[in-house]
């Protein structure tokens, strides 16, 4: 008996030895700091004066914080749900399919890279210029298939002598045009490389009817006479030209390769020749993903890219543990695939879905890296979240009191998740 008692004491000492270092580190670097942080949050920015709840009041009344909290709410409501659902759909889709493993690997890979690398990656994807960002490139290409680009965006008359109007209304001739005298419609404001290569030197069309020429009134290197087709100046083909009379549109045609156009049936005059605005509208430039308006959705998009794989793998594991018979029984009983999914699969896989959801919620509440890296300077205020706000306040403004208050806020936000975990643990303990 004494030997056993001695061994027990030995064991307890050993227990302390085994546990000691870890407990020491945790107490010193986590436990005590939590208390200290709460203490700091009740003091002034430099930590000297006691200010009670002042920091908390300031925190909740400040627009910045309210905006950050709102963003966090948006994040928490949207991101975990979308990711979990995506994971569920992907897991169900790829169940028992050979390619499932490959898909899981590809989808899970983003979890291995840092949020910084992901941020850099998505800066490129979301780049506003359709010439750099793949997302806008696709959108602009799709848009342009349905409403083609204008031929000469930004072109305009040099002055009000021969042509007048605005980009929105189009340009029309100042002097009435009559058949027999070619109308001159000079335009500037076009980079020479925007003129098609096959455009010929500017010349009015010949023949009966109302004629004229649309050309780029710009001689390389200067010189030439304004509003006159000079040598070396090229016509603008493919411009839609309209002839109007008494406020009514009479005819439409297109300029040819020399920029000349002809309305064969029109004689006499006077007509007003008009170049409609859709010749000159700026091309569709895509969407400003990283701008203040769309930055949070854009961020959530990249978050989904990173975490969908995680959700899919977890749900897949859950699905593979489902008892087949329950599903088969339901099917034999005549349930449709959708009913089987809704009434049998989902309830059985619910525990896994809950774990995924809770993990993501905790993760999203603390989100920092992604927002800090992906959102450009100008969008940082719109993208702000509590963790980021805490960093800024503490290290840019050196307001330790407010920073600590924000840290406490963050802690309170994850408290429900913490209690949930503890409850789950105690329920599962043997």
């Amino acid at each position, binding site marked *: 008996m004494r030997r056993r008692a001695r061994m027990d004491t030995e064991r307890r000492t050993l227990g302390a030895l085994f546990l000691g270092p870890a407990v020491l580190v945790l107490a010193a670097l986590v436990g005590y700091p939590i208390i*200290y942080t709460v203490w700091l949050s009740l003091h002034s920015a430099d930590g000297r004066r006691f200010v009670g709840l002042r920091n908390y009041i300031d925190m909740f009344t400040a627009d910045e914080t309210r905006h950050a909290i709102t963003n966090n709410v948006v994040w928490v409501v949207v991101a975990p749900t979308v990711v979990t659902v995506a994971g569920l759909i*992907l897991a169900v889709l790829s169940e028992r399919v050979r390619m499932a493993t490959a898909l899981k690997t590809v989808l899970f890979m983003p979890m291995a890279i840092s949020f910084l690398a992901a941020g850099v990656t998505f800066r490129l994807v979301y780049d506003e210029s359709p010439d*750099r960002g793949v997302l806008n490139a696709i959108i602009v290409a799709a848009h342009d298939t349905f409403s083609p680009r204008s031929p000469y965006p930004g072109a305009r008359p040099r002055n009000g002598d021969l042509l007048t109007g605005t980009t929105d209304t189009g340009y029309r001739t100042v002097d009435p045009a009559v058949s027999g005298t070619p109308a001159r419609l000079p335009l500037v404001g076009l980079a020479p490389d925007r003129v098609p290569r096959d455009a010929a030197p500017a010349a009015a069309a010949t023949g009966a009817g109302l004629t004229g020429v649309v050309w780029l009134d710009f001689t390389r290197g200067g010189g030439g006479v304004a509003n006159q087709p000079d040598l070396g100046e090229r016509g603008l083909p493919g411009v839609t030209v309209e002839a109007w009379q008494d406020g009514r549109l009479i005819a439409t045609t297109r300029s040819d390769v020399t920029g000349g156009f002809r309305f064969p049936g029109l004689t006499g005059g006077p007509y007003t020749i008009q170049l409609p605005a859709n010749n000159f509208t700026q091309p569709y430039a895509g969407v400003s993903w990283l701008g203040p308006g769309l930055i949070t959705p854009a961020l959530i998009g990249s978050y989904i890219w990173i975490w969908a794989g995680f959700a899919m793998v977890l749900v897949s594991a859950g699905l593979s543990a489902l008892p087949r018979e329950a599903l088969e029984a339901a099917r034999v009983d005549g349930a*449709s695939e959708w009913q089987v999914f809704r009434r049998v699969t989902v309830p059985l896989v619910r525990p896994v879905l809950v774990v995924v959801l809770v993990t993501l919620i905790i993760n999203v*509440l603390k989100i920092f890296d992604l927002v*800090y890296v992906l959102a450009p300077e100008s969008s940082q205020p719109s993208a702000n979240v509590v963790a980021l706000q805490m960093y800024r306040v503490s290290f840019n403004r050196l307001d330790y009191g407010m920073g600590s208050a924000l840290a406490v806020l963050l802690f309170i936000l994850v408290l429900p998740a913490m209690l949930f975990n503890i409850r789950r643990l105690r329920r599962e303990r043997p």
Partner: protein
Amino acid sequence: MTITPTAPPPVLVPAGTTARPPTTRRGLRAVLSRLGGTVINAVITLIALLWLVPTFGLFIASLRGTADNSASGWWTVFAQPSQLTLTNYENLLHNQNVLGSLWNTVLITVPSTVLVVVLGAFAAYALAWIDFPGRDWVFIVVVALIVVPVQVAILPDAKLFARIGIYGHIPAVVLFHVAFGLPFAVFLLRNFFIGIPRDLVDAARMDGAGEFTVFRRVAVPIAWPAVASLAIFQFLWVWNDLLVALVFSRAESAPITYALREQMRAFSSNVDVIGPGAFVSMLIPLTVFFSFQRYFVQGVLAGSVK
């Protein structure tokens, strides 16, 4: 939380009949299973390709020159393969900043991982196999600590580190990572240690082995997969961290995430400087991921509360 597949119970059929597999498949399921394979495989392939586009784009962009990157998209490379160049990576090799920070990352990540695994394993073993009063409460506290955000400890720890003179240096970063990596490590390993058959432990103890020997000879070998998962998870977690680095390191001790972030601030989104750097910073994690995929996935799954 573990999900263990259960053995399928035998199919019950009324006496006198034989179990008939459902040969008639109705409605949507019939259509789906006929198209099924091909369509689903196609959809899955499409999704997989879609997922690879962002990383692929960055990779290609890092292989193009500055002028090309500003003027046209990386996808034009397929029409003009001559755009591809290794210049950016060459420049990277001469960039002391980036190289130094890569080395710092190693100096930070390896000790963090080792310390977390060692300290965590000892603590987990004690919580699993050494009986002492209050053991369960200690474990509950540890579990609670897993979700604690680092923000609540940053400021006090910064002051502490400053007082002992390591603030801004690598040991500070390492210590902080160890502290916040321990709760999960202890949780994961303890759950694993608990699963070791009692007889093994008792037998070893009966043989007169000291606790330390039991730990070394019985527990650790059995728990090896869990230790591996933990190590890899922790390794990647620390390698990819940004916030802790931002707070506790300075330019000389900065890991690669910090260095790249600084470059982004200086050069906005200058893809040719940042792209290669980001990609190189991804290489180690990706290598680790692909080599130890199963362990990493298990680590993440088990840690699915962090």
